[in-house]
C-alpha cells in the first residue's frame, strides 16, 4: 500500500441549514491520481475547495502530510504552498505578465531567489510549450494557453499535491486537448493529483481511483478502470450511460 498524502475523515459542510457534504471519507495516496466524478451540484468542487481552505467545513478533519486540519484551521497560508490549485474560470492576474504571474508565489510567498525561480519558471513554460509568451499579458492568450499558464503558476511553488477543478470546462473543444496533455504529463511524473472533470475519456485514462459523488455523498469508490468497466452502483451506471464517451 502506497503512502497516504491526504486523508479526509467524516467531512461535513453546511450552507446555512442545508448540508452540502455529508460524511465524506477518502484517502489520496502519494503519486496517485484520484478523479472526482458526479453530476453537477453533487459536491465535487466544494470538496476540492475544502482541501485548501477556500471553503470552511463544519466537522470532521483533513490530514495532509503531518498536518491535522480541523474546522476553524488558521494556518492555511503555509499549507497552500504545498497544495496547488487550478480553477475552472481563468484566474490569472490580468494586471501582471505571464512571468510575473508565475513568479509571484515563488518570490513573495516562498522568498526564493529570483535567478533560481526564473530558471524554474522558464523550464516549466517550455514544458507547456509557451516559452514565447513570457512577457505577454493574460488577455493576449487563448483560454487553453491561460489554463496551461495557471497550471505552471501552481507548479512553480513545487507543491506535493495538485487540485484541478474542472479546468477544461470553460474551454473551446480544440483547446481542451493541450491542457489535458499537461495534466497527463504530470501524472507520468507521479504528481499526486485530485481531479474534478467531466472529460470521461480523460478520467478513464488517468484515474488510479475514482470517487463518485451524488448529493454530497461518496456513493462509490473504485479503482479507475473498474469504475468505468464495472460500476458497482446503479446510480454510477446511469451516470456513465448518460455520458457521451
Amino acid at each position, binding site marked *: 500500500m502506497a503512502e497516504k498524502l491526504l486523508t479526509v475523515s467524516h467531512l461535513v459542510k453546511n450552507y446555512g441549514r442545508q448540508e452540502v457534504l455529508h460524511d465524506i471519507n477518502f484517502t489520496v495516496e502519494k503519486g496517485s491520481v484520484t478523479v472526482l466524478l458526479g453530476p453537477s451540484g453533487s459536491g465535487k468542487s466544494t470538496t476540492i475547495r475544502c482541501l485548501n481552505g477556500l471553503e470552511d467545513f463544519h466537522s470532521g478533519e483533513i490530514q495532509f502530510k503531518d498536518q491535522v486540519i480541523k474546522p476553524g484551521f488558521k494556518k492555511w497560508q503555509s499549507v497552500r504552498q504545498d497544495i496547488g490549485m487550478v480553477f475552472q474560470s481563468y484566474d490569472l492576474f490580468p*494586471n501582471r505578465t505571464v512571468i510575473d504571474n508565475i513568479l509571484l508565489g515563488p518570490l513573495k*510567498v516562498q522568498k526564493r531567489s529570483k535567478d533560481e525561480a526564473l530558471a524554474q519558471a522558464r523550464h516549466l513554460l517550455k514544458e507547456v510549450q509557451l516559452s514565447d509568451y513570457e512577457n505577454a499579458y493574460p488577455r493576449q492568450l487563448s483560454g487553453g494557453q491561460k489554463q496551461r499558464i495557471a497550471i505552471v503558476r501552481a507548479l512553480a511553488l513545487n507543491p506535493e499535491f495538485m487540485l484541478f477543478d474542472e479546468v477544461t470546462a470553460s474551454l473551446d473543444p480544440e483547446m481542451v486537448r493541450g491542457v489535458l496533455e499537461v495534466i497527463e504529463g504530470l501524472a507520468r511524473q507521479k504528481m499526486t493529483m485530485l481531479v474534478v472533470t467531466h472529460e470521461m475519456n480523460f478520467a478513464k485514462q488517468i484515474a488510479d481511483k475514482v470517487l463518485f459523488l451524488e448529493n454530497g455523498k461518496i456513493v462509490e469508490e473504485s479503482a479507475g478502470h473498474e469504475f468505468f468497466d464495472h460500476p458497482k452502483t446503479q446510480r454510477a451506471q446511469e451516470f456513465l450511460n448518460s455520458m457521451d464517451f
Partner: protein
Amino acid sequence: MDWSIVQQGIPTYEKAFLLTLKLSFEGILGAIIVGLIVSFVRYFKVPGLQRILGAYVELSRNTPLLIQLFFIYYAFPEIGFKISAQASGIVGLIFLGGSYMAASFDGGLNGVPKIQVESGRAIGLTDWQLARYVVLPQGLSLSIPAIAANVIFLIKETSIFTVIAIPELTNTALDQIGMLYDTNEALFSLVVGYAIILIPLSILLTWLERRTRRGTFGN
C-alpha cells in the same frame, strides 16, 4: 459685449483662475486620501473604525456643501476652531469629496472578481500580499472612471466657495456684475475660466481611463 472690458479683467480672472486651481487641487488630493482610507477600512472591515467612518459618509453625502461650509467657516469658530476662508473651503471640499471618493474606491475594490482573490490565496499569498499585488492594483484601476467623474464634480463645486467670499472664479464674476454691472463680460470670462480647466482635464481623464482599462481587462 465690450471686449476691452474683458481684456481689462484678464489679470483679475487670472488670479481667480489660479486660486480655483489651487483650492481644487488641494481639496481633491485630500478627498482622495480620505476616500482611500475610508474605503480600505470598509473593505478590510477594520472593527470600530468602520462604524465611525460610516457615519461620516452619511453626513457628508446627505448635506449640501453650502451648509458644510457655513458650519466650518461660521459655526466652528464659536466652539474654538477658527480657520481662514480658504482653509475652510479646502476642508469643506475634502469633507464632501471624501465620501464620494470612498464610494468610487469601494466600487472598484468590490469589483475585483472573487476568483482573483481565491487564486491569490491558492498560491499562498498572505492577506497583505493579496491586497498589495491583486486587489489594490485591479480595484484602483477599476475605480478610475468614477474617480475622474468626482474630480470634475469637485472642481465645479468650488463655485460654492463664493458664499464665504473666497475670490475664486465665480466670486470674481459675481463681484464684477455686482459692482460694475458688466454682466455679459463677467459671465463670458467665467465660462472661459472654467472651460480652460475642465475641458482639457476631461480629455486627459478619458485618455487615462482608456489606458488603464486596456491594462486591466480582457483576461
